[in-house]
């Protein structure tokens, strides 16, 4: 199963961003980036941890997909 996080980053790459910019954007504006990728996130959520928990609870992403995304972020030195 494809990782929706990577799909989201791929969409951002189509907009001309490099990977560092994509991850930085994801950190600073997770709601906007995730909605662009097609995720269903409530409006009242601003905490990234809460957003991720919501995505997992609703089945939009799996634990392994989150793990992959976290490891990629750690590989870029972001946390």
């Amino acid at each position, binding site marked *: 199963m494809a990782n929706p996080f990577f799909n989201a980053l791929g969409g951002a*790459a189509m907009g001309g961003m*490099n990977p560092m910019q994509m991850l930085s954007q994801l950190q600073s504006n997770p709601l906007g980036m995730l909605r662009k990728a097609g995720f269903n996130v409530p409006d009242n959520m601003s905490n990234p941890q809460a957003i991720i928990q919501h995505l997992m*609870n609703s089945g939009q992403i799996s634990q392994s997909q989150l793990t*992959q995304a976290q*490891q990629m972020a*750690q*590989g870029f030195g972001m*946390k």
Partner: protein
Amino acid sequence: MAYSYYTPMYQPNYYSNNPYQVQYQQPTMPQPMQNVQPVQQTQNPSSILWVRNNQEAAMYPVAPNNAVALWDSGAPVIYLKQADAAGKPSMKTYDLVERAEKPVEATQAQDGNNTAYATKSELAALAGVVRDVDGVISSLRDEIDTLKAKAPVKRTAKKEDEVDG
């Protein structure tokens, strides 16, 4: 910590040069990502997730009916965080202890061909021997005291003879 094998599409040369931009402007751009996904899954990359401390581990999101192992980057500690079907999280903390080569001595003791340690029964027997020796010494001292009490009469008689002579 670089995972270059894990994200092959993010090669360092993509950051600065036109080839990167050209790559992503091609209409076939999604294909590399799709081709990459199965490779990542089959390669089974390292699943180590690093956290800075206990608090960060406690905040890590876990999906219902899932568990993750979080490694503390500053201490030999692993946090096992899991969530039940309702999503309620729980966390256990484990200390990592390096196994040294000491177990070889322990196995020797268990075999009975013991060269380094005495058993409890051997120590008890030794204590009994020490008590017996102590009793013998006490009785010998008593005999010596008895003999000393009888001995000094001779010397006093000699001196009286010398004085008269």
